[in-house]
């Protein structure tokens, strides 16, 4: 990427990069992404919200994208940084294709590349403000990994970002098992997404579920989940304790 001195690195930057550019805080953000391994590959779910602070500003943001032939990337955090990462990955895949050698980067390689990018940016105090979930299948091998904005990375049978770590993973630890069918995988992810919808302030009721198998990537149409409010305790919660919640 950029190897020249900091004042010339980016012609679009209006001042010397040495003295100003540091990501301090995110502006437009996406919330949790959840990924699980299943029988034929990886299933991933993310809602389509782009929050602007506490405002639910954008409701049709696609936070999962296919990468090359074998990978699927989901991102939470700053959307502009995610778009920048997609740009880097476009370049990576282009160079890979240009070798024209019949080989192609698999999910493990893409994950490794992303880890290096995220960690090196963190070391320069200018992080890409994202938590990423990278899943894929190559030559029958399923791969599911995650990278955070500070470069923490690992792979597992089920991963999640943000609130998903606290609300979805306990459900997955209990109910995930090897060789889930597509139907069971979807139901499990929907169960997690519903809890997130109830309990995460930045969640939005419009989501997509993506699957990646040896055959390729499919990202579902956007859809919404039904929610349940029929507990009798919800009707008159403060009867007998006026002033409480």
């Amino acid at each position, binding site marked *: 990427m950029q190897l020249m001195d900091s004042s010339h690195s980016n012609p679009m930057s209006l001042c010397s990069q040495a003295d100003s550019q540091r990501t301090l805080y995110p502006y437009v953000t996406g919330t949790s992404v959840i990924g699980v391994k299943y029988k034929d590959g990886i299933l991933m779910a993310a809602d389509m919200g782009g929050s602007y602070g*506490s405002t639910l500003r954008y409701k049709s943001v696609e936070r999962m994208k296919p990468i090359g032939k074998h990978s699927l990337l989901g991102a939470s955090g700053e959307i502009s940084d995610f778009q920048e990462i997609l740009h880097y990955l476009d370049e990576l895949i282009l160079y890979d294709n240009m070798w024209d050698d019949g080989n192609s980067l698999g999910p493990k390689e893409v994950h490794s590349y992303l880890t290096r990018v995220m960690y090196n940016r963190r070391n320069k105090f200018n992080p890409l403000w994202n938590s990423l979930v990278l899943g894929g299948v190559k030559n029958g091998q399923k791969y599911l990994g995650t990278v955070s904005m500070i470069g923490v990375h690992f792979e597992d049978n089920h991963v999640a970002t943000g609130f998903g770590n606290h609300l979805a993973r306990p459900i997955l630890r209990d109910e995930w098992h090897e060789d889930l069918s597509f139907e069971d995988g979807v139901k499990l992810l929907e169960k997690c997404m519903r809890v997130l919808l109830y309990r995460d302030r930045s969640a939005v009721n419009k989501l997509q579920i993506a699957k990646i198998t040896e055959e390729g990537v499919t990202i579902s149409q956007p*859809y919404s*989940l039904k929610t349940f409010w029929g507990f009798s305790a919800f009707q008159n919660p403060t009867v007998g304790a006026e002033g409480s919640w």
Partner: protein
Amino acid sequence: MGTTIIGVTYNGGVVLGADSRTSTGMYVANRASDKITQLTDNVYICRSGSAADSQIVSDYVRYFLHQHTIQLGQPATVKVAANLVRLVSYNNKNMLETGLIVGGWDKYEGGKIYAIPLGGTIIEQPFAIGGSGSTYLYGFFDQAWKEGMTKDEAEQLVVKAVSLAIARDGASGGVIRTVIINSEGVTRNFYPGDSLPLWHEELPPQNSLLELLHSSSPEPMNV
């Protein structure tokens, strides 16, 4: 406690409305809270801001109003209730962080709404909005508010407004609770999250993606 609270007068009484989300940071601590609290039989208060502060203010005012009612020998007026709220909010302005809307019905003045924002100002208004979600409703009410609505029109306006705020404010959500107060008494209503109208970019809810896929789907999956 980011919130959306609304109070609206109509010919005959008032309609109070609120969402039901209480959050600690980004976590929704209670998705079905009741933010419309009783002060007397005929006066209720909508609470926003710090949950603790709004609860303690309404507890104090309920206590004072109870004693006042005994001494007066008849139901307290909405104006008295609102001014008691103002006194507590104003005299403790450095410590409190709560915005309140007092609404009720009494035989002298009929239905009345009083807004008491941060600082302890009191403003009598035909309608009032408050909480973090209210920022999304100023334009809506400028256009949709009309004098002399019926009870049903007023309640529908309140439900529509809270629903619009919930669509855009992350700190508001859950169910919509309304309280209607008039000469006949008090009615509480409950509108669960999935019964509310859909707004821009929102989709009708489904049981599962699997049902969408197995039905003769006009929109095939796409890469």
